[in-house]
């Protein structure tokens, strides 16, 4: 992804495409979208990945998390025919050196999260999938007390540390 962002590397983009496009199609079709329309959305999402690559910050998000968000925004905008309310972007210093320690910490945290998800019992995992695919309402999510939201707490602390660090640099 960094090769795409920094060098506009087409071969690297083609690799990203091979990995994510079929998963995106499966992800989008799970909500009942037909194969044809799903591919149109996949195409728009992947083109957004290419054109907005400069907004990708590896110290803030995994590639999968970033693409997940783009896909969800696109699906919602199409379904509602209006733009989804999004938080303000954080104004970050574009000249800032990438924080290697933060990137590593984020990667480790993501692996930790992945293992935690893999260890879940089948039905718990099913609930997580349903929740993040947008199949559960917030009432349904809060009613599922089995939801191991605790597993993401350390990721939250890490993210907060990083955001505070960024803002301190900007002052």
């Amino acid at each position, binding site marked *: 992804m960094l090769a795409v962002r920094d060098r506009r590397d087409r071969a690297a983009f083609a690799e990203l495409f091979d990995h994510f496009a079929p*998963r995106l199609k499966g992800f989008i079709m799970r909500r009942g979208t037909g194969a044809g329309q799903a591919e149109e959305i996949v195409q728009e999402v992947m083109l957004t990945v290419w054109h907005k690559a400069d907004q990708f910050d590896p110290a803030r998000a995994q590639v999968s998390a970033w693409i997940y968000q783009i896909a969800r925004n696109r699906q919602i905008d199409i379904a509602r025919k209006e733009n989804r309310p999004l938080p303000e972007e954080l104004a970050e210093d574009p000249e800032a050196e990438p924080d290697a320690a933060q990137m590593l910490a984020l990667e480790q945290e993501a692996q930790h999260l992945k293992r935690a998800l893999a260890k879940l019992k089948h039905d718990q995992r099913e609930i997580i999938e349903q929740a993040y695919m947008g199949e559960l309402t917030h009432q349904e999510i809060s009613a599922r007390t089995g939801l191991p939201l605790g597993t993401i707490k350390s990721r939250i602390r890490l993210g907060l540390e990083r955001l*505070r660090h960024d803002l301190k640099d900007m002052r």
Partner: protein
Amino acid sequence: MTTIRHHIPDALLAAYAAGNLPQPFALVVAAHVSICLDCRAALEAHQAVGGLVLEGTAPEGLSDGMKSRVLDLLDGPAPASAPRQPRSGIYPGPVMEALKGRPPRWKPLGGGVRQDILSASDDGSVRLLYIPAGQAVPDHGHGGLELTLVLQGSFSDETGQYGVGDLEVADENLEHVPIAGAGPPCICLAATDAPLRFNSLIPRLLQPLFRI
């Protein structure tokens, strides 16, 4: 930045990340995240889980030629995206977006209380409320969920005190009388998924008229 003590519950953040929160609530969440680092970090964590779910999704075969079609389009113009409204004064970017960049158009509700309805549909409604210091919003219960985000001043009710950036989550079981604190008028962003019910007769008669 003042300390924000009342944050977005995890279930609402997860539903927002997954794109499954009704529009009025999504606006309140986006506005709160714009001014609250804790909830921004928490939202990014939920997005990380979403990313892992995407990674774990069974791949679906693509039709022939799709990849080369997309690669051919890389040189094309970037799709136009409308510029987003920036924050203005006490109003975070997503609220300015809902206001389409204009200042609020306040309509009087009586007792110095004013409102500007940003949207109202079957999904629920979201409005800005302006409550002078010491003034109460009439005792009301809720048909469903109500989210109230303080943008200026403060209010307190049976559940506690809410200052700038604080989010109150009220469900159908809460009958409360929010009273604006001393100081500048309390301005909040309030979203409901059902019409508010007032417990005294006059406001109830006015309810259809004012859509409060």
